[in-house]
């Protein structure tokens, strides 16, 4: 590979508190050789490939901490190839994949399979998660040690919660010893039984069974109590409410160490957007009130929430074209994660640097992976985007195999122009 220099870039890299006009040089191996305002065009010889960023923004390739790949078992919803294309078009170069495939990734041979398959078919960095419990049934823990040694970065039962408190205590106890990351979905099943929407006015109007945010809060409270006893690496996948934030604030202020994620859906939509039964907006946790949404945005600003995820969940039309309560949960979002997040910059609710931090260095730190940064020696995973271009979401033009976007026809501002993976150009608008 030829050396490359990116010139005329506004480089934002929160891992080194950098937001400046400058250049970036990648060496022959696709690693960062030099970065920043002091790097000059004259630092390289003429044989180097020159990329003029034209004043646009250059950030580390995005790390999406929660996405679903259909392989194996649900290839008709998404496969490694389509997921890669969607990700790269959205500037995402590293994906944490969820284990709720068919079969479920809960044993060593499945991990070997997924890593091999991913290497052959995917064109992004994949960081697979395994389930916390066998078959995601919430009864028996998986082989945390063996699975980690095969390349598992974290453990998650995806959209299922460990209900059994004794088991959760043991999981955290065991995990604290060997240092693995436990990622919990917070939902009390007794409180959320049959529910498919936030409990409130919209649920009452639509005649749907709602779930109160107490269901989320109660599990967070329980787990954080356990965490005092068993201080493992603990992460809450996605929170959805103001209620939960209050608990998180109290615990973080007391110095407890844990991390928190939020889905871009909960940051940019609320329950009113569901309208008359738009099943593409059926998510888990559900979209809540505008008050909750605003509190979540504020939570990012206050460092109570560390990560924004796409919660990319491709679903075929058949699973969505059902009465709301029966329809599948989730929306695609990996390709629109950055542009949709930029909305919070444009409407002045979050600084740009903060947004970038939550999708690059923060997830990398939590996962302990060497991504999300462009420090000297880092991999040349780069996303270049324009901050201003207005465009409109057209589901048919999105690259994901499934078209269940929650933001069809939404007008956005800012678009990914180019994506590089290990120094190679892999997406060019």
């Amino acid at each position: 590979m030829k050396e490359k220099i990116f010139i005329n870039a506004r480089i934002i890299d929160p891992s080194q508190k950098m937001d400046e006009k400058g250049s970036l040089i990648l060496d022959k191996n696709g690693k960062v050789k030099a970065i920043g305002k002091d790097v000059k065009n004259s630092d390289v010889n003429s044989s180097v490939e020159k990329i003029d960023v034209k004043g646009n923004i250059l950030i580390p390739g995005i790390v999406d901490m929660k996405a679903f790949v259909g392989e194996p078992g649900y290839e008709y919803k998404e496969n490694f190839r389509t997921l890669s294309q969607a990700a790269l078009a959205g500037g995402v170069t590293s994906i944490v994949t969820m284990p709720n495939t068919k079969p479920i990734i809960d044993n060593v041979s499945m991990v070997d399979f997924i890593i091999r398959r991913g290497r052959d078919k995917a064109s992004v960095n994949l960081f697979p998660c395994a389930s916390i419990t066998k078959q995601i049934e919430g009864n028996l823990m998986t082989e945390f040690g063996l699975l980690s040694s095969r390349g598992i970065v974290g453990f998650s039962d995806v959209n299922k919660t460990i209900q059994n408190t004794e088991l959760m205590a043991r999981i955290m106890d065991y995990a604290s010893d060997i240092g693995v990351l436990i990622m919990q979905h917070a939902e009390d099943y007794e409180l959320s039984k049959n529910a498919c929407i936030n409990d409130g006015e919209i649920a009452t109007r639509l005649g749907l069974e709602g779930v109160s945010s107490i269901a989320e809060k109660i599990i967070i409270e329980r787990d954080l109590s356990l965490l005092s006893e068993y201080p493992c690496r603990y992460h809450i996948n996605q929170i959805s409410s103001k209620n939960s934030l209050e608990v998180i604030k109290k615990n973080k202020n007391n110095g407890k160490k844990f991390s928190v994620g939020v889905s871009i859906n909960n940051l940019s939509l609320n329950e009113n957007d569901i309208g008359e039964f738009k099943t593409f907006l059926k998510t888990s946790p559900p979209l809540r009130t505008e008050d909750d949404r605003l509190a979540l945005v504020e939570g990012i600003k206050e460092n109570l929430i560390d990560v924004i995820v796409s919660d990319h969940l491709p679903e075929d039309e058949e699973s969505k074209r059902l009465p709301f309560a029966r329809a599948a949960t989730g929306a695609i979002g990996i390709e629109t994660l950055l542009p949709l997040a930029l909305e919070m910059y444009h409407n002045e609710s979050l600084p740009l640097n903060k947004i970038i931090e939550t999708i690059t260095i923060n997830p990398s730190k939590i996962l302990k992976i060497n991504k999300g940064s462009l420090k000297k020696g880092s991999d040349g995973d780069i996303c270049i985007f324009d901050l201003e271009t207005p465009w409109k979401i057209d589901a048919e033009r999105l690259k994901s195999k499934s078209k269940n976007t929650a933001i069809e026809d939404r007008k956005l501002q800012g678009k990914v122009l180019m994506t590089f993976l290990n120094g190679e150009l892999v997406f060019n608008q």
Partner: protein
Amino acid sequence: MAARKNTSAIKDPPKHLLGIQNLSVQEAKQILKEAKEFIILNRSDSKKLDVLRGKTQINLFFEPSTRTQSSFDLAGKRLGADVMTMNMDNSALKKGETLMDTAMTLNAMHPDLIVIRHQDSGAPNLLSQKVNCAVINAGDGRREHPTQALLDALTIINRKGKIEGLKIAICGDILHSRVARSNIYLMNMLGAEVNVIAPKTLMPKSIDRLGVKSFTNMKKGLDGCDIVMMLRLQNERMQGSFLPSKREYYEFYGLTPEKLKYASKDALIMHPGPMNRGVEIDTKLADDINVSLIKEQVELGVAVRMACLKRYCK
């Protein structure tokens, strides 16, 4: 008034009757006006018209129903339509056929009207997106039962002359009730004041946002009410334990002659049926022709459904 008439002449009526929420005041009033004329027809010797001759009406019932189904059946026949009733609770669904598959199958038979009752909220909306004919909601989940609310309105108008300015109490299992929701929208729309009365566990969240006052106490809730609508305590829908016992419920929420005294002196009682005598309503009170409109509701149900079928059939 003249201007109003003009706009109604230009604007096509909506294609489907999915809920009172989708109805304008004007549309509701037109349906009620037309229904009034059908009351007279239904009481006469010759009850049959031919306004829907050659039209096909399919009653698609995914949930068992006696009165709504027979009411729609009769309404269609009296207007001269060919009526086919399909009870879906034990057929196609068990074979794994989805609502959409059923819709496509029926659509291929070129019906002019589909009347649907379904246990899932929003099912009629979904169906209406896929078929070429008018869809009439005969009750979906706990969301809406528009023709029930319309027949309730017609019954009230028939006795009290109007709805505007009346005070109406809806009492019982509001949480699971589509009848309550449709009535809240319609009675509000027609200018009544609505109170809802239920134990806390059977009261939906943010119900006040629908423009009602909510009470957990019968005495306070019934105060000054002209109409008392009782709801069935839907045993089959109770998946958890919402209440300590039926006995306790009757003690605090069952309508008895004593509790009726809290309401206005000439208050009338309604119930969408089927009743649980001795659970939500005193049996003698339910049969008292001086205060109970329950039989009249059933009678006027046919007239309202005839008006709806006629209006929505293309």
